[in-house]
C-alpha cells in the first residue's frame, strides 16, 4: 500500500503574526491527521518566514515548510500559486486546507484548477469517513468529508473528492475552535527554495491601507443585534443603547446593513461574522437562514419581533412578541434598576 500523504495547512500571516483563521484550521488539521495516522505540515510563504515557524509548531504542526523570497512579499496570486503548486506536486500531501479569507479564496481555486483537483469552499466542518460511488459501489475509505452550507444556508452538503489528490478545502473563519498552543511541542522547520522567478510577478501592489476593525464580534460575550425590523437608522440607535447598557457589541443582519442602518463590520451571518456569544439579543430580526447560521450557537438567544411567525422564534430561548420601539427601552430601564 502506498504511503499516505500528510495534512497540510497553508498558513496566512501579516506583518509578524499569523492569522487566527489559519490557527483555527491547524486545530482541525490536527484532528484529521490523528484519525488518519499521518502528520500535519504547515506551509509558510513570504519575504522571510522562518521566525514564524515556531508558532506554527506550537499550534499543532509536526513540520513546517518555509518558503522565503523577496518575490513572495507581498502576496500575489501568480507567485504564490506557482510556488505552492510545485511544492504540492513534489511532496504529494493527501489533504490541503486553507482559511477561507480573501487571500485563501483567491489562492485555493487557482491552485486547485492548476492541479485539476476538487476544492470545496467555506467548509464549516471536516471529518474523515467513507464514500461509496452510487453507480459502481466502489468504496473509498479514509476520505475527507467536506461539510458546508449551500443555498444560502438552507441545506448542508457533504462533499467529497473521491479520485483526485490532494483533497482541497477552504475553511470558514470563526467556526473551528482555536487550539491551545503547546509550549512543549516539537517539530521540524524545513526551508524550501520556492519555485518562483521575477517573471512570475503579474500583479504589482501599489499601496496597502489597513483599517483595524473596531468591532470585535468574535470575542464578544454579549451581542445586541438589529435587523430590517428596526425600521430606520434612528431607531437602530436603540440597539446601540441596549448594547452599551449591557456592555455588549452591536451586531446586524445583512438587511440592516444594506438598508444603511449600520456598516458591514457589524454584520453577523453567512457573509458576515460567525459569532458564539453567551447572550444574543435579536431585535427586529425575522431570521433568514443566512443570519441564523451565523449566530445559532449563541448560549442564550432572546428574540424581539412583532411578527410571532418570524423564524427567529424557532431558534430563540426567549421570545418577546412586541414592538422593538417599546420593548428595547423597557429592557434598558428595567436592567438599570435591577443592576443597581
Amino acid at each position, binding site marked *: 500500500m502506498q504511503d499516505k500523504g500528510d495534512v497540510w495547512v497553508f498558513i496566512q500571516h501579516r506583518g509578524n503574526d499569523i492569522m487566527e483563521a489559519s490557527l483555527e484550521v491547524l486545530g482541525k488539521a490536527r484532528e484529521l491527521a490523528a484519525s488518519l495516522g499521518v502528520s500535519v505540515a504547515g506551509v509558510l510563504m513570504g519575504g522571510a518566514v522562518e521566525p514564524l515557524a515556531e508558532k506554527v509548531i506550537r499550534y499543532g504542526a509536526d513540520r513546517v515548510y518555509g518558503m522565503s523570497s523577496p518575490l513572495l512579499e507581498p502576496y500575489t496570486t501568480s507567485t504564490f500559486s506557482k510556488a505552492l503548486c510545485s511544492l504540492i506536486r513534489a511532496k504529494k500531501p493527501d489533504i490541503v486546507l486553507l482559511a477561507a479569507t480573501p487571500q485563501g479564496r483567491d489562492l485555493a481555486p487557482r491552485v486547485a484548477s492548476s492541479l485539476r483537483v476538487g476544492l470545496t469552499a467555506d467548509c464549516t466542518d471536516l471529518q474523515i469517513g467513507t464514500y461509496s460511488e452510487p453507480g459502481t459501489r466502489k468504496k473509498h475509505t479514509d476520505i475527507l468529508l467536506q461539510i458546508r452550507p449551500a*443555498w444560502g444556508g438552507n441545506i448542508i452538503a457533504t462533499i467529497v473528492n473521491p479520485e483526485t489528490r490532494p483533497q482541497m478545502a477552504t475553511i470558514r473563519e470563526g467556526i473551528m475552535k482555536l487550539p491551545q498552543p503547546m509550549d512543549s511541542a516539537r517539530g521540524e522547520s524545513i526551508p524550501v527554495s520556492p519555485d518562483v522567478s521575477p517573471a512570475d510577478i503579474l500583479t504589482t501592489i501599489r499601496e496597502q491601507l489597513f483599517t483595524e476593525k473596531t468591532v470585535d464580534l468574535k470575542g464578544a460575550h454579549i451581542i445586541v443585534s438589529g435587523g430590517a425590523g428596526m425600521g430606520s437608522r434612528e431607531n437602530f440607535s436603540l440597539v446601540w443603547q441596549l448594547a452599551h447598557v449591557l456592555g455588549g457589541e452591536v451586531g446586524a443582519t445583512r438587511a440592516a446593513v444594506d438598508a444603511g442602518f449600520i456598516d458591514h463590520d457589524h454584520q453577523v451571518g453567512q457573509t458576515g461574522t460567525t459569532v458564539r456569544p453567551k447572550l444574543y439579543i435579536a431585535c427586529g430580526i425575522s431570521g433568514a437562514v443566512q443570519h441564523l447560521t451565523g449566530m445559532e450557537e449563541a448560549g442564550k438567544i432572546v428574540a424581539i419581533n412583532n411578527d410571532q411567525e418570524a423564524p427567529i422564534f424557532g431558534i430563540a430561548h426567549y421570545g418577546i412578541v412586541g414592538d422593538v420601539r417599546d420593548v428595547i427601552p423597557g429592557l434598558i430601564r428595567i436592567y438599570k434598576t435591577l443592576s443597581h
Partner: protein
Amino acid sequence: MGYSTVVLIKQVPDTTAVTAKAMKADGTLNRSALPAVFNPEDLNALEMALEIKERYGGDVCALTMGPPAAAEILRDALFRGVDRAVLLTDRCFAAADTLATSFVLSRAIAKIGAFDIIMCGRQAIDGNTAQVGPQVAEKLGINQITYVEELNRLTDGEIVVLREIENGKELAASPLPVLLTVINTANTPRPPSVKRIMKYKNARAACELEQGTNVDRIKEKGLLIEQWDADMLGVDSRQCGLNGSPTRVKKITRVVLTGKEFKKVEPTDAGLQTLLEELIQDYTFD
C-alpha cells in the same frame, strides 16, 4: 482605442428571499418558492464593464452557462447595455462543479475571440464559493484580481484597481488581459433601459424558439441570442458537467430550524423584569 470585455453571469435561485413563506411546515426550504434571479454581484461586474465601455470605448459580451431558462438573464443583460449575449447550454454541462464550469467557460471565452478584460461577480449566492472566476483565469493562463471594489485607472496594457483584503484595501496593478471578480460595494447597477427593453424584448436563444420558427429572420433583426453546445465549443463531454467534476456530493441535509427550550416573554414590565432576572441569575451578563 477601446477594450473588449466579457462578463460571466449566472442565473441563481434568490436565496436571499427566504422568508417564512418559503419554509415548509417541517422547517425545510421550499425551493420552488424561490424566484430565479441575476446573480447580484454579477450585476456589479456588468455595471463596471459597461462603465469601462462608456469611458474608453469597446464592447461588452455577456456569457452564461445554464439551462435554456438562463437566457432570461442574457435578455436582461441586453436591456442593460451589452453588445453581445452568448448562452452555453447542453445536457452534458449539467451538475458541473466549479472546475468543470470553469473549463467550459474558458473554452467559450477562447471561442469569443480577443479580449482585454474578463469580469464576474466575486461569488454567486447559491453556492458562495468564489471559485469560478479564479479557475477561469487559470484555465486561460491570465492574471486575476479578486474582490475588486473600484476601477482606478485603465491605460493601454495596464489596469489599476482598488480591492478588498483582510482588514483593509490595496491598490493593485496588472497587465491586460486580466480577470476581475467584483464585490457588491463596487457600484449600484443601472436598471434596464426602457429603450433597450423595447429593442430586445423579443430576443431569443434557439432553445427558446418554437419549432418551425424562422431563425434566420430573428438573426437578421439582431434578436438571436447565440447558443453554443459542447460540439460547437469542441469540448470533450468527459471534461464537462458531472463527468468533468472531481467533487461529488455525498449527502444533502436540509436545515431544520428546530425549536430549543422556548419561553415566551410578555412585552410588559413584569415580563421583561422576569426575563432579565433569569439572565442575571444564571450569570449570563457576567
